[in-house]
């Protein structure tokens, strides 16, 4: 299927406070939050972006929704570059692309009723008020908040976390978007409730034919959400493959470490020692070449010289590692 979202060589720098020396020398140090990211998302596909804090995954999500602009590189939605969008074109994009917030307790204005919260995007998009009630009702049905009337006049504090997350999802769906970015959609919810929200997200994706991006730090969770996963490390994609391959046959040494580190709810599982040491380096001064090399158990001289490109090593499986190219 044709790509709905296309990223090419996307780079995003954030300026950092300059030291006196840097000021004098006229230097402009920056954190390279994203350092050349390219991938496509097919229409109707769902992908996960996984990585540790600071890897650039949230920045990537914000770029895809045009909530921030890339330093260089292009992002296109349905064949149109986001950079050039303005006026009616931009409003059209905003209707089609929606964000599902991480924390349902913060995402809703405590002084708005649930009805007003869900109807607000309709108001912003300039939809005729006469249509609001029907569209809000349809969104509520999609997220299985039965007994609509029980919720509409309530305020966020009167709802449980699971109900709130359904309301947040209803608000994202009320404009019938084509593209959804969900940043850690269930990380604030309790385990027994979380499973229901995950199933719901898969269901609305299927019934509405949505294209979706899930941003998460939790590899174990992502397995239940979508078939393809991108793994990021310090602003770069290090592996892009079917989620099952990532989990069972990870090829990049960083992905291998990530998979080994995920605890499983089974005490009989043998404890695999962590294959790497140390911490994620300072994003202002990443190592030369491959940014993972100073923690990699397989690092070679070549790794310090050239950053390995992300290359296809098998059908639908891309890895950025010199070991794969050797």
């Amino acid at each position, binding site marked *: 299927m044709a790509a709905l979202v296309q990223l090419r060589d996307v780079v995003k720098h954030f300026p950092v406070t300059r030291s006196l020396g840097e000021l004098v020398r006229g230097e402009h140090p920056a954190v390279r939050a994203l350092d050349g990211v390219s991938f496509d998302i097919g229409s109707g596909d769902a992908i996960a972006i996984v990585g*540790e*804090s600071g890897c650039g995954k949230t920045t990537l999500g914000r770029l895809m929704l045009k909530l921030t602009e890339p330093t260089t590189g292009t992002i296109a939605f349905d064949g149109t570059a986001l950079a050039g969008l303005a006026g009616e074109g931009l409003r059209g994009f905003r209707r089609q692309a929606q964000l599902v917030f991480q924390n349902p307790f913060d995402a809703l204005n405590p002084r708005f009723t649930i009805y007003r919260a869900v109807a607000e995007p309709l108001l912003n998009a300039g939809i005729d008020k006469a249509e609001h009630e029907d569209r809000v009702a349809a969104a509520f049905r999609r997220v299985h908040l039965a007994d609509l009337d029980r919720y509409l006049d309530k305020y966020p504090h009167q709802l*449980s*976390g*699971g109900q709130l997350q359904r309301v947040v999802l209803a608000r994202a769906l009320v404009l019938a978007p084509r593209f959804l970015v969900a940043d850690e959609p269930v990380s604030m919810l*309790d*385990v*027994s*409730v*979380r*499973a*229901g929200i*995950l*199933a719901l997200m898969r269901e609305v994706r299927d019934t509405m034919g949505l294209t979706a991006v899930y941003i998460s*730090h*939790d*590899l*174990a*969770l992502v*397995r*239940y959400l979508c078939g393809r996963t991108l793994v990021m490390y310090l602003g770069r994609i290090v592996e892009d493959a079917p989620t099952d391959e990532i*989990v069972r046959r990870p090829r990049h040494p960083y992905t291998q*470490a*990530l*998979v*080994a*580190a*995920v*605890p*499983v*709810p*089974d*005490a*009989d*599982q043998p*404890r695999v020692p*962590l294959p*790497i040491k140390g*911490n994620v380096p300072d994003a202002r001064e990443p190592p030369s070449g491959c940014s993972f090399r100073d923690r990699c158990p397989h690092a070679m001289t070549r790794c310090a010289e050239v950053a390995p490109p992300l290359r296809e090593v098998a059908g639908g499986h891309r890895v950025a590692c010199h070991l794969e190219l050797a």
Partner: protein
Amino acid sequence: MILEVDDLQIHYSTRAGPSGSGVVRAVDGASFAVPEGRIVGLVGESGCGKTTAVRAIMGVLAENGRRAGGRVVFKQQALDEAATKKLLWRDIAYVPQSAMSSLDPVYTVGAQLVEVLTKRGNATGRAARARAVELFDLVGLSENRLRDYPHQFSGGMRQRAAIAIALALEPSLLLADEPVTALDVIVQRQILDMLRELQQRLRLSIVLVTHDISVVAYLCDDVVVMYAGQVIESGPVRDVLARPRHPYTMGLRNAFPDLLSDALELVPISGSPPDLADPPPGCRFAPRCPFALAACTTGTVAIASGSDRTHRSACLRDGEADQLRKAALDPETWLRSSSFATS
């Protein structure tokens, strides 16, 4: 047993609501024990009372909270609040939920460590500084970071510093509240491995409060499962996670993501925990339990040991645990909401 908690009751007074008396029974008759030299996981979802129980043991409840009943026995000595204060940090230490909020942002981490050693312990300045270096080394932090402020530390380093402060006066019992929850998975693993190593090296006993049964599976020897202010199951981790006896634990196991499982669906437990200002009579899980009987909704259900004495569960149908566990593996079971959902 280094620590025994017997029928602990903790009440919070709140404004009276339409349904309740204004008293929230956050912990309502919880009993568990911590054997010496073991790591015990206290596990449950938000609001189950796990943090409150630990704070009560430490004697640091919020102002509107009070111990309404029960006993806490530490090394054969009953602890009331005054007795706890004397032991705090020296014999019982605490690693709080968020290391950032436990470290003071305006002092260097080293100064805070030295303060604990000189003010709470009776070390001289010179001895305290030497000990601070030792402690940093113990938790894998380099000595020159003692001069840094908390904001200069990463999340993992702050957690290590909080553990160093907790261990400063050589306690025998460490209570850690969600010590790895906010951390990335690789850092989380490094901290868990360090806790295990410290436990063995220093012969510590540890209570680990967490919502994450994978962390319990990885680190703990024993587990205590709480639901709605009560302990509903306890025992050795291997037994409880592989052969849960209480339907709530069975449901939790099904709902929990597992990187290695073949199942492609997580199964939710329908409904949500009860309001602790007005809890239902009988078993508190009955309104959500697919196996509930009429008898489950009256009286109280005591926690009891089955045929093997270490694994205990508070379920009227404990005798049928093996059959229930089999039925619980079928997702269909959990679609059927309890017939007592409204009671």
